[in-house]
Each structure stands twice: as structure tokens, then as C-alpha cells.
């Protein structure tokens, strides 16, 4: 009995001991063959309790004896250790031959990458944070294969054009869908005017500007249709899935962490032309200081000329210049000094804590960037709060709340050639060499009016001081989702998202300008648009269901309701009363019609319902089949065409897992994949029913009666309009070679897009300007290759060299267009992008120099000029293809201990562009290209009849070579470069996109500080580029689009040049 008692007591104590043992802390270090491994996930098997290894690979976790700890890390073999007596468990992970990386796919579904039958590119926060760039899209440039990103110009905060796998819609939207924390995110560029009239298209911000790149934790780019099918028509152009730090929902025990990021950088104009400083204003080698062109006499002629303001109209304002003559001399830096070095700063603070049941994250970001254009600035402040709570074993609630406020300002920039446009770039890059642009007054001291040497355009300095475009945005985007876990295999989630912003845009010019009534009388236009997206999703998820021993199934079924409204209010005021005071009360007339455009007040509503499902089967973990489909109902078209069903299927097969012998030292991993996907593009709003717009106060007669009008809309309605249909086949391989030193991922795809919704421009003699029809077919095919290579990797010395190569090539062809009609896409009708049957999408069409059959110029025998097709009466023809042949990006990182040097270099091959900037630089004779000018020149060619465009023949029936001598002035002004084809250039371009040098302090140095890590980075963007096929002296960077965000390409009408940035950043964690 005594023994029994003792035994009981003993058991009692043992059990107490074991109870105590349950609470013990296990710690240790995780390493791989190169050293400590941070970020390893450590999870107690069968629970959601977990932690991560820190910067030095150390971890600690509370657990009890008998628990199994699971150590997992991307690209490594997962290891399990059972907790025993020891409190220390050190683990060395070895590289996996299998890619068991988990990636975020459509609708937020996390899947192992190896199971995917289509391409997904992922980026981590390191790829986008601490960059001298507020625009997340521009940060992504060159980092993802198959994605093309072109800024509308170099202004800080201006819009950015993105396309994934090329444009597939002729006139529809080709910009990808952004999904932030699972909820569609509006990224529109709400330009208040188009390229042909008014300011705004060349500068308006794209609304992904509201995302702080420093708040991003990861990005997945879904490119093909099988990857995006669950988003329905919204996903047809690819999907950029962004998880913000505040939207991250992982519940692992990671403790408290703070990240602080600060950068300071300089923003400069990327390039200026090489100016000649030998000749100044005038024509035909004689000086005339009233001219725009620089075909005057030599500066070394020691001439004396009238002061530029020695004009009778300035007699009262500037008596000091009257009768004054000055030496005729070059002001060599007159253009350079107009620009400035802008300073930008970015601050970001992130604090997070997570435990097994609760996690939260607080984010603050502030960016203040001055552009190189005086008066250009973007300030953005963002706040974010996110978290996740596990209410019980069954309920989990996640939420993230983000607020962003931004203020963008720029002096006016817009395409030249447009009606009523203002821009500081119209003539600034080619001001006369002898104009002391920055040294002369630009404003009347009494009236504030424009002062310039000419009366037909505003002085750019006057515009900087007296005109501005601005966009102020307050944006709130948030989501809440509730998940109920029926069991560990079935869960139901309801997610509600709200994304709403108010965008207030303003454009003004003070009175005193010269170029139009708006400029001389003063003009103020203010619009305020409210965009709201409500997004509801109900999602049933099935996980890890074993159908047989070898066949597993995961499924997702969802219902989505998405409603978007845009409601804009605007006022345009003319007739400023008091100079310089910007308020609608200070203007004499107000209207809600833009004098250069249409009504500023309008409403738009669009609803979409979607029902979708996906079933993913796997067989023995080496063969995967995914079937998915979605049905959409859209409010933009009539009932008969409203519902659309899109299926997709994909297969992935991993021979290296299926067949043991397949795997070797050389071939570590191989996957082949095939997929088929479909999607649709619903038409824009209000295209199916007729309207008759009214306009008020369009005329006032002599008796003061105000005349209002009613008129047919320019749009011919099409009640039969339906969605355009896309389908795509994709095949790819993924491989790891040479002990994982080489990774290769390659995809080829072929897409056909039919029933294109065409904005068909009509001859106005039909009574309408345009209609929307379904017609035409575009085929796109392309290849994307991501090659990773680690030439050196030495664990002991810490020296490592990583190299990445991204190659993309896309080719598209308009294979069918109704009736052989050409469809205008963007630009101007006589110099713009077109869809033309049998040609790549977006070819440039314009006038051309008439040539004979052999391609020689035909020359007008009367004056020696080339013959302009437009003058002869020939139809415009295709003069260029703006689609590049291929793009290659290489990024190399060499690291040694804490030091790391990396560079990203890009090469774009081919792609024509039309440049008004280059044309004007040549035409006005300001660059070194036209410096050799004192002789005469003969345009090589044969004489032609200027009336018929046919070659002239001599008595023997031979063509007559041109021998007419011309001065350089005659060649370049109103002659050689005036037809549109003569201002087309090949856009091949080599660019150093990014170079950085960073240093992380060794852990030991930080031991006695509260810092967890500290790193410094010096970083430069766009520091150098070389466009070999543009005229040497122009130094023109073709990576700009004057037509703004949209489907235009390769068109420059004096766009803002690109910028280069360099600076310094610090990142610290606590």
C-alpha cells in the first residue's frame, strides 16, 4: 500500500514534471550550406503555432516534449524534428530538388508553385522597397518577364502605361487588373482631356500611385488567361496581385518588429541634346533675332543685334531695353539652367507583431519628391493598419485599412499639335542658342502678363510661374474578411472590400498669356471625381481532400459581386478678374463644359456579377490538373449578350519526381506545363443606346439672347454590342540545373482575341464620328524566359554572384478586320497608331516622302525639295511599327559578407517611334547634328512631278538625278523632315535601369543596440541610356508616350523627357 502510495506520488511528480516540461522553450539556429538562414518557417505540426528564424537564423519557440517541429523554407527540403529532452535543436536545411514555393494565385488562393500549369512571377518586398520612385509600376520595370512598363514622361507623379504580354484589344483597356489584399483596386488614369485637346493627358497620374511601394510585402503577376480566369473579364490583361504589409494575414509567432526606411535622392533630367553654339537665330545664314530657328549667322562674326526685348510693345514695361543692342552670342546653358535638380525623400515606418492568434501591422509612409521640371512635385502620405484575429478554432477575421493622401503638381505639359494645349515643352528644348532664357524677365512687372521675345507662345518661365496642373487625391481602401472553418478541409469566407477615392484635378493659367483666349483671359478648371468600388465575395474552399490514396483535390468556389461608380463634378471658369488669384469667384464666367472638351459633370455606374470555381487535382505529387471556370454578368451591354462563361484547364507534370532516374546531378528538377484559358472583355459604358447631348450658352446673339443647342451624339449606338473573346494556349518548362545553380523558367503562349470591340471611326458624312462594333481578330504570340544563374557561391568566404536574365518577345498581328477597314487607335488621324489587317497592332500611319520604285526620293524640280505625299494627294501609309522585337533585362548582384552590388541593364530591340522633339531639334538647327551647314547639299534622288508623284524622265526615258543644291536651312525647314515618315526612328535602346550598392552591418556590431539590422544603400535609376538609332546630337530617350496612358505607342509630341535619379537609403529593423 505504501509502495502504491509512493508510486502514485511518483506518478504525480512525473506528471507535474511533464506539465512543467510542456512549457519549455526550444531554441536553436537554422543554417544551410552557406550559413545562417533567416526567415525559415517553424511550425508545431498539427497546430497553427509557429515562428520564423531571425536575421541570424536563430529562433525560439515554446513547445512540449513529443511535439514535432516542422522547418520549412522556400527551395529547401522541409525537415521535421521531435522535441525531446534537449532545449536546443539546430537544423541544417538542404536544398530541395523540388520547387515547393508557395505562391499567391487568383482570388488569393495559395498554391505550391510546382503544381501550377501556368506562369506566375513573384517578387518580394526587397525588389520594390527603398527605391527613389513613388510609382510602384515604374519600380517594377524590367523585373518581370512579359511585362512592359512605359512612363508617360519624366515628371514625378505622372501616369504610367503597363501591359502584360502585349496589347490584345484594339480600342479596349489593355492595362492589367490590380488586386490589393484580394480586392480589385482602381488604377485608372483619369486624364481630363485627350492628346488632341487640352492639358492633362500627358501628365495625369495613374492611380496605383496611391500604393506605397514600401508597404508591399509581395507581388504576384499572373500573366496568362488560365492564371487569371477566376477574375473573369477584369483579369484578361493579366493581374498584379499585391499583398501589403498591412494586408498580410500570417499568424505565426514572430514577436514585435519595427522596420524603418529612409531615403533621399536627386532627380535630374536624364539627357539634354548636344547643342551647337556656333550659330544663332535667323534664316539662310543671316541673323534675325525674331526667328524661332537657328539658321542665322555665326556667333564669331562679332555682330551686334537688338536686345530681345527691344520691341516697341515693351516700351512702357521695360524702357531700359529700348534701343539697346547686345552682342550676338550663345548662351550655352540656356536650356540646362531652365531645369533643376529636384530632391526627393521617402520615409517609411512599419511596426508589426504577430502571435498564434492575433497579428497586427501598422504602416506609415511619406514621400515628397521634386521633379526636375521646376514646379513639379508629388507628396504622398499613407497610413495603414491591418490585422488578423482568430476568434475561436472556427472563425478567423482579417482586415486591412489603408488611407493615402497625395498631391501632385506640375507646370503645364501636353502634346504639341493639340488644340488649346499649353506646355512648357513646346519650344523649350530648342530655344534660340542666343536667347538668355533664364536671364531675361518673363513677366510684366505691372500686369503680370507674359513677356517673351515672340508673341505667339508663352515664355516657359511665365508658364512655370503662372500655370499649373494639379491632382489631389484622398483614397481609402480596405477589406474585411471572415472565414469559418468547418473542419481543416472545408472553409467558407466572406470578404467585403471598399476602395474609394476622391480625385480633385485642377488646371489654371493666369491671364496675360498670348496663345489663346483662355491664356489671355485666364482659365481655371476644377474637377472632382469620386470613384467607389464595392466588392463582395463568398468563397467556399476545399483543401487537401484525398479522393484516392494517390489523387488529391483542392477546390474553390466563389460568388463575386462588384459594383463600381464614378461620379464627377467640374467647373471651368474663364475671364480672370484679378491677376494671380486662383478661385472660381475671381473669374467672370463659369460653365460645366470644358471649353476644349466635353461636359465636366457626369456619372458612370457599372456592376458585374461572377460565379466561379476551380478544382485542382494532383496525382502522387507529380502530376497536376487544374480545371477552372467563371461566368460573368455585366451591366454594360443589353440583356441578350450579358452572360458569358469562360473555362480554363492546365496541366503540370514533373518528370524528375515521377521518374527517379530522370533526376541527376545536372538536372535537379524539371517541370513541363500546358494550359488553356479563356476570357472576355466587356464593352465600356453606354454604347448601346442613342443620346442627344444638350449644350447651353454656346452663342449669344446681338440682342443678348443666349442660344442653347441640342444635337445628335457623335456616337452611333450599337445595341448588339457584345464582349470580346480571348483564348490562350500556353506551354512552359521550369527547371533547376547544376545543384540548383541554374534555374530556368520559360513560357511560350499564343493568344487569339476575336470579336474585338472596335471604336470604329466613321466618316462624319455618315452623320456620326464613331461607333463600337464587334469585329476583327488579333493573334498574339510570345515567349518569356527567366534564367537565374549563380556563377559563384562560396559559403566560407561569403562571396556570391547571382545573375538573372529576363527575356520577352511578343508578336501580334491583326489577322482580320471587317471590310479591310483601318481602325484608328491613338494620336492624330494623320500621324497615329492604327490597327490594319495583316499588320502588327498599333502600326504608325502618316504622310511620307514620295519615292520611286527603287526607294529613291523623288525631288521637286522647281525647288529641290522632297515631294510630300499629302500634297500630291496620296493616302497616308504605314510608316512604322512601334512594337519592339524583343526585350532583355539582366540583373547581377555580387555580394560579399554584408556588401552587395547590383545592376539592372535592359536592352530593347526595335520598335519604331515618331518624334516631334527630334524633328524640331533638327528643324530649328540647335543641335550638333546640323552644325555642318556652310556648304550646300543635294538631296539624293531623282526629279519627280510634284503634281503626280511620278518620276520625270529625260528624252531617253531615263530618270533624271537631282542636282539642285540647297542650304542646310532649306533642307531642314519645310522640306526633308516634314513628312511623317522622315521623323520615324528605330527605338532600340540600352539602359542602365538600376544600380545599387548596399551594406548591411554585421550582427555583432549591433548586439548592444536595440537594432535588429541596419543597412545602407546607394542607388541610382536610369543613370545611362543609349539609343543608337536616333540622331546623335539629340540624345533622345524614346521611352515616353505623348498619348498618355492607353493604347497609343511610339508617339512623341514634345513629351516631358525622362528623369534619372540617384540617392541614398537607410533601412533599420528593431
Amino acid at each position, binding site marked *: 500500500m505504501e509502495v502504491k502510495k509512493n508510486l502514485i506520488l511518483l506518478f504525480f511528480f512525473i506528471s507535474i514534471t511533464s506539465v512543467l516540461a510542456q512549457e519549455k522553450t526550444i531554441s536553436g539556429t537554422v543554417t544551410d550550406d552557406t550559413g545562417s538562414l533567416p526567415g525559415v518557417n517553424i511550425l508545431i505540426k498539427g497546430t497553427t503555432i509557429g515562428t520564423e528564424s531571425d536575421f541570424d537564423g536563430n529562433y525560439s519557440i515554446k513547445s512540449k516534449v513529443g511535439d514535432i517541429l516542422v522547418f520549412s523554407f522556400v527551395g529547401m527540403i522541409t525537415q521535421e524534428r521531435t522535441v525531446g529532452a534537449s532545449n536546443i535543436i539546430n537544423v541544417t536545411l538542404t536544398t530541395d530538388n523540388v520547387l515547393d514555393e508557395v505562391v499567391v494565385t487568383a482570388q488569393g488562393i495559395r498554391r505550391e508553385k510546382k503544381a501550377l500549369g501556368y506562369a506566375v512571377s513573384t517578387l518580394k518586398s526587397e525588389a520594390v522597397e527603398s527605391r527613389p520612385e513613388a510609382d510602384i509600376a515604374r519600380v517594377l520595370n524590367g523585373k518581370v518577364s512579359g511585362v512592359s512598363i512605359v512612363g508617360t514622361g519624366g515628371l514625378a507623379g505622372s501616369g504610367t502605361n503597363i501591359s502584360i504580354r502585349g496589347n490584345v484589344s484594339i480600342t479596349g483597356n489593355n492595362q492589367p487588373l490590380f488586386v490589393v489584399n484580394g480586392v480589385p483596386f482602381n488604377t485608372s488614369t483619369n486624364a481630363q482631356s485627350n492628346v488632341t485637346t487640352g492639358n492633362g493627358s500627358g501628365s495625369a497620374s495613374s492611380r496605383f500611385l496611391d500604393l506605397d511601394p514600401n508597404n508591399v510585402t509581395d507581388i504576384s503577376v499572373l500573366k496568362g488567361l488560365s492564371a487569371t480566369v477566376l477574375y473573369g473579364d477584369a483579369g484578361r490583361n493579366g493581374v498584379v496581385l499585391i499583398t501589403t504589409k498591412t494586408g498580410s494575414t500570417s499568424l505565426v509567432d514572430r514577436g514585435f518588429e519595427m522596420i524603418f526606411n529612409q531615403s533621399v535622392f536627386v532627380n535630374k533630367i536624364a539627357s539634354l541634346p548636344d547643342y551647337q553654339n556656333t550659330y544663332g537665330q535667323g534664316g539662310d545664314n543671316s541673323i*534675325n533675332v525674331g526667328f524661332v530657328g537657328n539658321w542665322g549667322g555665326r556667333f564669331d562674326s562679332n555682330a551686334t543685334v537688338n536686345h530681345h526685348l527691344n520691341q516697341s510693345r515693351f516700351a512702357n514695361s521695360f524702357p531700359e531695353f529700348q534701343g539697346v543692342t547686345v552682342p550676338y552670342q550663345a548662351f550655352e546653358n540656356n536650356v540646362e539652367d531652365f531645369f533643376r535638380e529636384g530632391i526627393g525623400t521617402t520615409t517609411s515606418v512599419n511596426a508589426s507583431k504577430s502571435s498564434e492568434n492575433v497579428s497586427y501591422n501598422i504602416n506609415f509612409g511619406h514621400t515628397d519628391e521634386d521633379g526636375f521640371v521646376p514646379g513639379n512635385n508629388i507628396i504622398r502620405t499613407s497610413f495603414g493598419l491591418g490585422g488578423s484575429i482568430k476568434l475561436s478554432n472556427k472563425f478567423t477575421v482579417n482586415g486591412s485599412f489603408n488611407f493615402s493622401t497625395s498631391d501632385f503638381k506640375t507646370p503645364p505639359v501636353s502634346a504639341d499639335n493639340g488644340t488649346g494645349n499649353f506646355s512648357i515643352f513646346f519650344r523649350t528644348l530648342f530655344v534660340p542658342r542666343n536667347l538668355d532664357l533664364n536671364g531675361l524677365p518673363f513677366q510684366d512687372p505691372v500686369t503680370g502678363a507674359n513677356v517673351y521675345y515672340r*508673341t505667339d507662345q508663352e515664355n516657359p518661365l511665365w508658364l512655370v510661374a503662372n500655370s499649373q496642373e494639379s491632382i489631389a487625391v484622398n483614397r481609402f481602401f480596405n477589406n474585411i474578411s471572415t472565414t469559418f472553418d468547418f473542419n481543416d478541409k472545408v472553409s467558407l469566407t466572406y470578404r467585403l472590400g471598399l476602395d474609394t477615392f476622391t480625385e480633385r484635378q485642377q488646371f489654371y493659367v493666369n491671364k496675360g498669356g498670348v496663345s489663346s483666349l483662355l491664356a489671355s483671359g485666364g482659365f481655371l478648371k476644377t474637377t472632382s471625381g469620386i470613384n467607389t468600388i464595392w466588392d463582395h465575395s463568398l468563397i467556399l474552399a476545399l483543401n487537401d481532400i484525398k479522393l484516392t490514396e494517390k489523387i488529391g483535390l483542392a477546390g474553390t468556389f466563389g460568388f463575386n*459581386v462588384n459594383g463600381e461608380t464614378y461620379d464627377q463634378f467640374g467647373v471651368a471658369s474663364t475671364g480672370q478678374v484679378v491677376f494671380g488669384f486662383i478661385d472660381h469667384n475671381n473669374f467672370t464666367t463659369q460653365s460645366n463644359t470644358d471649353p476644349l472638351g466635353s461636359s465636366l459633370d457626369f456619372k458612370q455606374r457599372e456592376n458585374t456579377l461572377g460565379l466561379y470555381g476551380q478544382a485542382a487535382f494532383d496525382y502522387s505529387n507529380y502530376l497536376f490538373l487544374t480545371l477552372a471556370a467563371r461566368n460573368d454578368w455585366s451591366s454594360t451591354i443589353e440583356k441578350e449578350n450579358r452572360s458569358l462563361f469562360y473555362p480554363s484547364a492546365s496541366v503540370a507534370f514533373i518528370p524528375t519526381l515521377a521518374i527517379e532516374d530522370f533526376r541527376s546531378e545536372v538536372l535537379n528538377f524539371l517541370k513541363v506545363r500546358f494550359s488553356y484559358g479563356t476570357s472576355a472583355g466587356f464593352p465600356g459604358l453606354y454604347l448601346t443606346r442613342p443620346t442627344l447631348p444638350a449644350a447651353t450658352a*454656346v*452663342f449669344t446673339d446681338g440682342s443678348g439672347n443666349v442660344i442653347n443647342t441640342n*444635337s445628335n451624339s457623335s456616337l452611333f449606338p450599337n445595341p448588339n454590342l457584345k464582349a470580346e473573346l480571348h483564348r490562350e494556349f500556353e506551354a512552359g518548362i521550369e527547371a533547376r540545373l547544376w545543384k540548383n545553380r541554374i534555374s530556368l523558367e520559360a513560357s511560350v503562349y499564343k493568344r487569339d482575341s476575336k470579336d474585338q470591340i472596335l471604336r*470604329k471611326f466613321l466618316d462624319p458624312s455618315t452623320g*456620326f464620328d464613331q461607333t463600337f462594333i464587334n469585329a476583327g481578330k488579333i493573334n498574339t504570340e510570345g515567349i518569356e524566359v527567366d534564367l537565374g544563374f549563380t556563377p559563384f557561391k562560396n559559403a566560407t568566404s561569403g562571396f556570391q554572384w547571382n545573375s538573372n536574365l529576363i527575356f520577352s518577345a511578343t508578336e501580334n498581328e491583326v489577322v482580320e478586320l471587317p471590310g479591310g477597314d483601318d481602325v484608328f487607335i491613338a494620336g492624330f488621324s494623320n500621324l497615329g497608331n492604327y490597327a490594319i489587317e495583316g499588320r502588327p497592332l498599333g502600326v504608325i*500611319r502618316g504622310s511620307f516622302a514620295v519615292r520611286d520604285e527603287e526607294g529613291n526620293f523623288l525631288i521637286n524640280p522647281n525647288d529641290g525639295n522632297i515631294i510630300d505625299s499629302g500634297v500630291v494627294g496620296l493616302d497616308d501609309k504605314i510608316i512604322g511599327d512601334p512594337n519592339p522585337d524583343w526585350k532583355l533585362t539582366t540583373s547581377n548582384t555580387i555580394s560579399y559578407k554584408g556588401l552587395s552590388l547590383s545592376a539592372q541593364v535592359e536592352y530593347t530591340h526595335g520598335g519604331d517611334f515618331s518624334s516631334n522633339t527630334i524633328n524640331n531639334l533638327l528643324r530649328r538647327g540647335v543641335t550638333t547634328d546640323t552644325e555642318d551647314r556652310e556648304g550646300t547639299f543635294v538631296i539624293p534622288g531623282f526629279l519627280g512631278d510634284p503634281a503626280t508623284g511620278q518620276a520625270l524622265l529625260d528624252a531617253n526615258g531615263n530618270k533624271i538625278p537631282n542636282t539642285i543644291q540647297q542650304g542646310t536651312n532649306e533642307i531642314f525647314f*519645310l522640306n526633308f523632315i516634314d513628312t511623317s515618315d522622315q521623323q520615324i526612328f528605330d527605338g532600340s535602346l540600352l539602359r542602365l535601369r538600376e544600380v545599387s550598392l548596399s551594406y548591411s552591418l554585421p550582427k555583432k556590431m549591433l548586439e548592444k543596440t536595440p537594432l535588429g539590422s541596419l543597412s545602407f544603400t546607394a542607388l541610382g535609376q536610369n543613370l545611362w541610356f543609349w539609343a543608337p538609332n536616333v540622331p546623335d546630337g539629340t540624345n533622345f530617350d524614346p521611352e515616353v508616350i505623348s498619348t498618355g496612358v492607353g493604347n497609343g505607342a511610339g508617339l512623341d509630341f514634345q513629351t516631358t523627357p525622362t528623369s534619372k535619379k540617384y540617392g541614398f537609403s537607410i533601412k533599420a529593423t528593431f
Partner: protein
Amino acid sequence: MKTIKDKFKVIFIFLLVFITGCENTNLELLDNPSALTPSSVDPTLLLNNIQLQFQTAIAFNEDNEDGVNVRAAEFVRMQHLFGAYAGPFSLTSGSIDDLWTSFFREALQDINTLIPIAEERDLQGFIGVAKIIQAFSYVTLVDTFGEVPFSEALQGNDNPNPSVEGGQSIYNAMFIILDEAISAINTPNSVMPNDLFYGGDRAKWIKAANTLKFKMYVQMRLIGDFSSEINALISAGNLITDASDDFVFQYSTVASATGESRHPYYALIYDADGSDDYMNSYYVNLLKADKGFEDPRLRYYFYRQVQETPTGDDLPCEGEPGFNFCHLGDFYWTRDHGDDDGVPPDGLKRTTYGLYPIGGAFDGDDFTSVNLNAGAGGAGIFPFMLSSYVKFLQAESALVLGTTGDPRNLLEDAIRDSMDKVLNFAPGQVNPAFAASQADVDNYISFVLGQYDAAGDNNGRLDVIMKEYYIALWGNGIEAWNNYRRTSFPSDLSDHVSTSGEFPRTFLYPATVVNTNSNINQKAVTTKVFWDTNPDDLD
């Protein structure tokens, strides 16, 4: 477990209600909430747009887009032509898109919409006015382009590529349309619109319709004998023969970016950067010195901004060979036909449009640069058809075809009508010290009649008539271009000083047309209108 299930049920039901009751599930969002629909159309507002767009198509003048008048006036030396007849700063297919749109998509399409509505509501006067504007538009289009879409036009995408039709058949159709217009207006108690031309005056609209027919017959005189039709119109006495019946568009002084109501030339020129165009040396000289004395209309037509003589940088033509008039003297800053020298900043110095017909400033030796409200503030007119024009046409017809009337008397009447119109245009603006007197007018007329009498043959006489008509046409280059193509007169139009290219017998088709309409191809400017059988030697 039960409570969790219950909780879940509650939440689930709540969510379903939220989703289904939500406004985001409504798919009937097809009507644009910001625009009117056809059921709410207003005939008066439609007719307003028709008149304004008709006027715009002809008279508009801006940097990039111009009405028919601008290019026509450049061809015939009424406005300065910069460079070749067809070139980047003159006629290009891209710079005339808007006029085609104003004619077809706006005016003619709205007429198409208006007529059935007006028939339904028995607004006969609206029908009449709309048809007269329709006829005037088509006649102008034929005279400008030669062949244009007509019977296949205005059907939207149901006929996206309307073919052009011969000018003769469109003319024939317009004679019928004009007869229909007259009979609609003559319907007893027809409801007239309060229009911008005649304020709903039935008699004046009928005169305008008959005058248009008269003009069309005279225009066709090279291809047939229409003297009986012309005589019938003259004897019916229903033509515009009195200035009070003039078919003009009256502008006002209201400057506005969204409702500009001033003469388009005034709006372009009378502002801070001054004149955007030069006066043509030849045309100014016609009034200034051609006859050896000043035309009484000189100071009404042209306005000198500065009392300076252009020299140096301001006179690029100096010393260049081939100029007819590098400089006219007396502070008239003008340019020769086709002069494309670089442009100095002389917008506030060039001689520019005066009081008549754009409502600018009378030249009373003020020598003040133009500014926003100078002169008559832009309350000018566009003279579509004046009594003086009708009399010049009658004189031509009487001389050549022998129709009713004495050509010499008609010439005198025509000049007197022109003088009356110009000299009394805005009397308040005229500085009496520089106003033309009746004696000036009489002296002028006797000089011209002397020229007429001295002419050796009908050709010489017609040259005198057409030159006087040409001078009277200031502000309407279209009729001057029509006359020149029909008669080759005035015979002494100045030469082009540079490379002119072919003289345009018609416009190129607009870029918007050739780029969108597969049935219309671009054509040469040497293509002639059906009534133009003149030799090819015009330049």
C-alpha cells in the same frame, strides 16, 4: 457546437441579405444618366445647332482647323498664303477635318433628325429653313470638294462607307429641296423658327432660297444654257436685291471660351498676341493704289497697327528677288502671295482685318495695336450672300448670257450696294475725319465705269466686273474662288513668289474621310468641280 452553428447561420443569412439586397447586383444600367434621349429632343435647339455649325463650317478660323473660307481666300489672294497652295501651313487634308464634321455630322445630320420631328409637329417653317441650310451646305460642299457623299450619306454604321456622288446630281437634288423649302414656308400659317439669320421672316428666307438657285445657275453657265431659268428668277423679283435682305450671319461682342460669339477672325486676331495672319499685299494694294487713288473702303477693310515701316528683321523679303510687293509703304505691313519666309514676332505690327466685315477697328490713323475689345468688339458678319453680290452676278449673266438687265448699270448698282454696306457697317466706329464721302464713292464709280467702257471686248468688261466683285467680296473668299475658277478673273492676280504647287480646283478630302471611308480615296487638288470647264492654266 450548436451555438457556433447558430452563430454561423445568423451570419450567413445576414451576408446573403446584404449581397442580394445590394444595389451592386442591378444590371439594368444601360441609359447614360448624364445625357438626353431622342424622346426629349427640342426642334428649336436642334435648329440652333444646325445654324451655328453651318456657319462654323464656312467661317471658322483657328490655328489648326479652318473653315472653307480660310483656304479659299488664301488661294485667291484675299488672305496671305504661307508657302505652297497645299502644304503644312495651308491646305492639308488634316486641317479641314472639322469643317467636314460641322457640315455632315452636325448640321446635315441634325437636319435629318429635325425634319421628321417638324413634320410630325407640323412646323413647316422649321422644315423650310432647315432645307435651305441643307441646300446651301451641299452646294458649298460640291463647290469645295467636287464630289461628296449625298444619297448614301447620314446613315451611321448602316452605311459606313458612303460613296461620293457627282456634283451635278447633287445640284439637281438641291433645286428640288429648295422648291420644297419655299413651298413649306409658303404653307398658310407656317410656324417659323426665331432663327439667327432672319428672325423667322418668311419673305427673306424665300428670297435667300431663290438667290441660292440663281447663284447655282450662274455657277453652271459654262456647262449649259440656263438663261431662261435665270430670267425667270429675275423677273419673279424674289431675289436678294436690297441690303435689308442680305443673307449674313450676325456675330456679337460676347467673348467666351465655351460660347464664343464674336466673328471668328476677330476672336483669333484681336487679342494679346495680335494678328495671326498677314494681309495679302496684292489685295491691299488693289484698294490702296491700284486705281491711282484710295478705294473708299480701304480704311474699313484694313487696320494698320503701328506707324512704323518694317525693316531689318521685320522685313525678311528685303533684297530677295521675285517679289511683287515686298513692302507697300504707308505703314501697311503685308506679305506677298506665297511668301514663306520665317516669321518675326510682329503680330502686333502687321496690318490686319479692320471694321468690315469682322467687326474690328476702323483705321483712323490711330496706330494702336489690336487688343481684346478694340473696334466693334467682333460684332461683325459673315456675308454669305449680299445684294451687291447678286447684282454682280446679274451683271456677269447679262453680259455673257444676255439675261435681263444692263451689265453696266448692274455693275454700278453692285458697287453702290457694296459701298453702302461697307461705309454704313458700324457708323459709330468710324472716325469722321477719315470717313469716305459720297464724292469719293461717285468718283470711284465713274473711274470703274470708265474702265468698263474702255474695255475692248466682253472679256475685258467681264474682267472689270469680276475684279469689282472680288473687291466687294472682302470677307467671303468662297465666292471669289468660285468666280475665279469660273471666269479666270480678275486676270491680274499676283504671282506666287515661291513654289506654289498646283492651283487647287477643289480641296483635298479631309484626313478623317480618307482614313475612315473605304469608298473615298484622296484625290489631286487639280480635280475640277462639274461646272468648272475652265482651262488648267489657273495659278
